């Protein structure tokens, strides 16, 4: 085997570039900002990106499949509202948490049903459900907020372990990360996700049940949005209808930044982890530099553009080099 040259797809070099870029941002931010490399700030970066990371693990599968779910932030809000509402109605916290996860899963299932069974485009469906789920959240909880939750759970959402930089949610995120990494890279389910994303027709000929596969991915994206809704609720000790507004863009930009192809079929968990941490680190750096929110939004937009254009430009330059080498 060793004598054979191993094919290295261009995306792999993009994954590596993002990890290097993350390192560069860390070094630059540490040099230019006093408080960047402190355990408190690192803990903030992990905390602030926790919901993005949780949703991104599932959304990665969605984008690899060649689909998209723009309703994740609304599913987060609706799950959060159902958690707060059922707890306020007197349900024990464990039951409220189950309701939260069940609502997230149900929303994801509805998205999946509309896309796979009715054959509608995921972009159009999830733009619709983005508004619908947020609207239902508003209807349930209105202008009110629920902010009384058991201290054990709010400290889980906010605290760190002792004086370390590790937020209490971090082990859960690591477990999810390992689970999804194995699911994507080591199981038939993951291999089939990649196969469907690259060619639906080839996957169908290979006997893969594409409809069922997509239904599962839509449903667990809803479930993970529910988990993110739970973490968000406990982190801010607030259940309200506008929780997580705009989070879907941050999730998508972090995923694309992590080398996942918007056209489907290509992506890795480590790329996504690096993409989320890179976006979170840049955000933290800009905040510490006291750069205002508008500029931070502009930077997010630029990152999104780089993440889409970067791999394409790298690929084109590689092709150009190959053509040149062929001519010479």
């Amino acid at each position, binding site marked *: 085997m060793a004598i054979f040259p191993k094919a290295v*797809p261009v995306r792999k070099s993009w994954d590596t570039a993002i990890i290097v870029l993350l390192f560069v941002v860390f070094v630059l931010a540490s040099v230019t900002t006093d408080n960047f490399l402190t355990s408190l700030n690192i803990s903030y970066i992990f905390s602030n990106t926790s919901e993005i990371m949780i949703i991104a693990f599932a959304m990665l599968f969605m984008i690899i499949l060649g689909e998209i779910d723009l309703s994740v932030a609304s599913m987060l809000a609706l799950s959060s509202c159902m958690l707060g509402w059922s707890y306020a109605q007197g349900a024990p916290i464990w039951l409220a948490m189950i309701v939260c996860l069940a609502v997230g899963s149900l929303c994801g299932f509805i998205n999946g049903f509309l896309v796979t069974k009715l054959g509608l485009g995921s972009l159009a469906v999830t733009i619709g459900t983005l508004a619908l789920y947020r609207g239902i959240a508003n209807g349930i909880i209105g202008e009110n907020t629920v902010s009384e939750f058991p201290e054990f759970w709010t400290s889980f959402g906010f605290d760190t372990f002792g004086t370390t930089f590790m937020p209490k949610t971090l082990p859960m995120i690591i477990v999810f990360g390992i689970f999804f990494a194995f699911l994507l890279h080591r199981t038939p389910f993951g*291999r089939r996700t990649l196969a469907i994303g690259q060619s639906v027709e080839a996957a169908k000929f290979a006997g893969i049940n594409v409809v069922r596969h997509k239904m599962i991915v839509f449903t667990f994206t809803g479930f993970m949005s529910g988990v993110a809704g739970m973490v968000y609720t406990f982190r801010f000790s607030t259940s309200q209808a506008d929780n997580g507004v705009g989070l879907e863009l941050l999730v998508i930009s972090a995923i694309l930044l992590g080398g996942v192809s918007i056209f489907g079929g290509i992506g890795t968990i480590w790329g996504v982890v690096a993409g989320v941490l890179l976006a979170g680190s840049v955000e933290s750096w800009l905040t510490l530099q006291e750069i205002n929110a508008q500029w931070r939004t502009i930077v997010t937009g630029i990152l999104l553009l780089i993440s889409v254009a970067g791999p394409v430009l790298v690929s084109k330059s590689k092709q150009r080099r190959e053509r040149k080498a062929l001519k010479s």
Partner: protein
Amino acid sequence: MDKSPLIELIGVEKTFGRVQALSNINLKLYEGEIVSLVGDNGAGKTTLTKIISGTESADDGAKIILRGQEQKNWNAAKARKLGIETVHQNRALSEQQSIYANVFMGRELVNRFGFVKRKEQIKETEALMRKIGYTSKVWTPHSPVLKLSGGERQGVAISRAILFDSSLVMLDEPTTAMALSEQAEVMEFILNLKAQGRSVIFISHNPWDAHAVADRFVILDRGRLVFDGPKGNTTADEFISMLRDVAKKGSV
């Protein structure tokens, strides 16, 4: 030849909106024979193979009988499990995935924990590549399919059928846009399938290819089966003249 059919289609019809793509198709396929399925564009050849491979469902009332057993809820996974493999030009392989990922697509080898046995898949693919004559050291099981030539791609698709012990292999225009040497390679692969006792449905626009490998001809015209008979002593010229008749009169 065993006279009990491997697969039998009874009353297969398929409509797409107002278009009748297939009309009352009755067809038997026997073990170890090569059937050349021919007809003009829009005759319904691909639709028929899609129905046999389970990627398209027939209209209500059709019967698919495999080894004497009528099949209910026929789908692609079931068809593949029961040994029906389809080889389509450019479509049955995922180009950006590696050769080994394509070979095992949908039928990954897993350990007792449900994880893919990657090394074993690579090893088996390597052995398979040697078996089908991939002597070039440029290609490895990791090579993406898009780097292979048309003939080599078909080799991968056909070898997949061999590896999983398929009893019926359907090849839809497997030699389209190929160089002559590559076409010869594919024809060799097809005869090899027959030598191993497998049945083959071969679809081609090229009447010489269709004639060369066939044991039996099945001709479709605008969704109808207009001829089904053994090759016997029919020469290539006679076969082409039959096709001309069908194109002109709709019958042989």
